């Protein structure tokens, strides 16, 4: 059964059509990569799914329209990691991660600011998974870019939502932590969760994702397994690059090597 169904999605922002007629689905336990050049509408699509933008079309979660759920129900169904890193105050890493338990808080007069033991366990395990437990007392503003990215990912995991939307979670990370984050998202899927992840690194996309959705200029270009989507023709058509492609241990890799004249139809 599919976890998320998107059908005929249109997003218009400030008179500009940013996403046009997009349809795809994410199954339970599926890691779906969203790829495409800058300005393709990937972030816009993710924001629309997170109900942060107005849209036309259908977005269904487990068969129910996502915009019909209450804000609280929705907060427990999907967790969103934004592309920007806008944490404003120098709060501690543990407090930052703890904010992910907000959808489970009681009313303000009960347990305001306090966490139950279930919360504390969830917080600790998410922080250990993302390797930020030893940073728990540090201020978010003092962290390196990579440490902060992992702390924010822990904040998303701690929601324990069936659907995770991650907008470029590995952009600021070194190779080791890039692999670690992708492995984490991969293992998050094993418990039946679905993950939609925006990626620019095509090798990571090819190696870790079950399926890819490729977008360009707001439209769906290709969808399918990584080998079906990351073809020389599609790469030239969307990114305008020629890539070195090969296989290692039965998994494909894609290394963009040279620019090509984009073949626009």
């Amino acid at each position, binding site marked *: 059964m599919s976890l998320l169904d998107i059908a005929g999605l249109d997003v218009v922002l400030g008179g500009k059509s940013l996403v046009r007629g997009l349809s795809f689905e994410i199954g339970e336990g599926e890691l779906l990569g969203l790829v495409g050049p800058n300005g393709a509408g990937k972030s816009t699509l993710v924001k629309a799914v*997170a*109900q942060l933008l107005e849209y036309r079309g259908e977005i269904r979660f487990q068969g129910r329209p996502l915009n019909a759920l209450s804000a609280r129900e929705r907060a427990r169904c999907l967790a969103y990691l934004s592309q920007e890193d*806008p944490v404003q105050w120098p709060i501690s890493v543990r407090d930052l991660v703890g904010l992910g338990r*907000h959808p489970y808080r009681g009313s303000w007069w009960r347990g305001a*600011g306090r966490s139950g033991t279930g919360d504390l366990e969830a917080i600790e395990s998410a922080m250990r998974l993302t390797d930020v437990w030893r940073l728990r007392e540090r*201020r978010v503003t003092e962290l390196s870019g990579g440490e902060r990215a992992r702390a924010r990912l822990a904040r998303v995991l701690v*929601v324990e939502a069936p659907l995770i939307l991650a907008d470029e979670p590995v952009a600021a990370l070194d190779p080791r932590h890039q692999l670690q984050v992708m492995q984490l998202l991969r293992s998050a899927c094993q418990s039946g969760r679905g993950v939609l992840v925006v990626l620019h690194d095509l090798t990571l996309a090819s190696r870790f994702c079950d399926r890819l959705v490729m977008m360009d200029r707001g439209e769906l270009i290709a969808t399918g397994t990584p080998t079906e989507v990351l073809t020389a023709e599609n790469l030239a058509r969307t990114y305008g690059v020629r890539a070195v492609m090969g296989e290692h241990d039965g998994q494909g890799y894609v290394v963009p090597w040279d620019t090509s004249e984009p073949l626009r139809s």
Partner: protein
Amino acid sequence: MFQIRPRSLTLVLVLTLLGLSLASLCFGEAPLSLGEVVGGLLGTGTEEQRLIVQQIRLPRVLLAWLVGCSLGASGAALQGLLRNPLAEPGLLGISASAGLGAVVALYFGLTALSLWALPVAAMSFALLATAVLYALTRAGSTNLTLILAGIALSSLATALTSLALNLAPNPGGVQDIVLWLLGSIADRSFDDVWLCLPFVIVGLALLLLTGPSLDVLALGEGEARTLGVDLGRLRGLIILGSALSVGATVAVSGAIGFVGLVVPHLLRRFVDYRPGRLLLPSALGGAVLILAADIAVRLLDTPKELMLGVVTALIGAPFFMALVLRSRRDML
């Protein structure tokens, strides 16, 4: 820097507030001992002591609480909402707009029609100013544009207030208005306390409700919304809460600046920088600061008693300058 745990911070502030309140009842032109103050409060002392304590000094103490709590809590809430440590009701022109509302009510003689005309006019103008600021920050503005907008709003309100004074037919009334605009809680009665009390209580309650949502807003608007924070409701609560509490207190005390800026800044480290947990301590801290400044005003040996708003501005403006310089250095 000495360390206070977040939980004991509230207790420390409450005790300081009570201590200063007693001190404030003691000091003045006719100094009273603690025993005489207690006697005056309970009505067991002499008639004169009872009059001084109950009619003159107690309203002053209570107004210090109300004004301080309003400014402190509004400052903390606005900083959390706008995600900006420089937000403050005075700096953003909310206080000046409330002052304009009050002057309009005085100028057009609305105060003769109803006792409530003054606070209602002040609150309406404060509400309008906050809504304008909010609309500006919606359009993705930076710290700089927000502060510039606040300055513009503040200048406009001050200019319109001056215009009203300029055209005022009665010179005697003008001096009253000018003095009142400088900000003071001296020579106020229980009538003033009752006039603003209900609005301050409602306003503070609305502000304190926003704590958990403000904490989550530290993540940014998008992620906060996906965690179930209703941004529209949050903004509404804070705009209404600050307008009610600041508007009502400006109506009786005039504009007292910088308290809403300084207090959250001083207390933030003790609540682990969590914007939501900062609300209650900032309210209490605001009251402590106003009370302390009001005692200082009386103890200073000046030919004429200084106005409270003048003193807070004299301390607050250099502080603000330092804060701006530091935030500029952090950005570089």
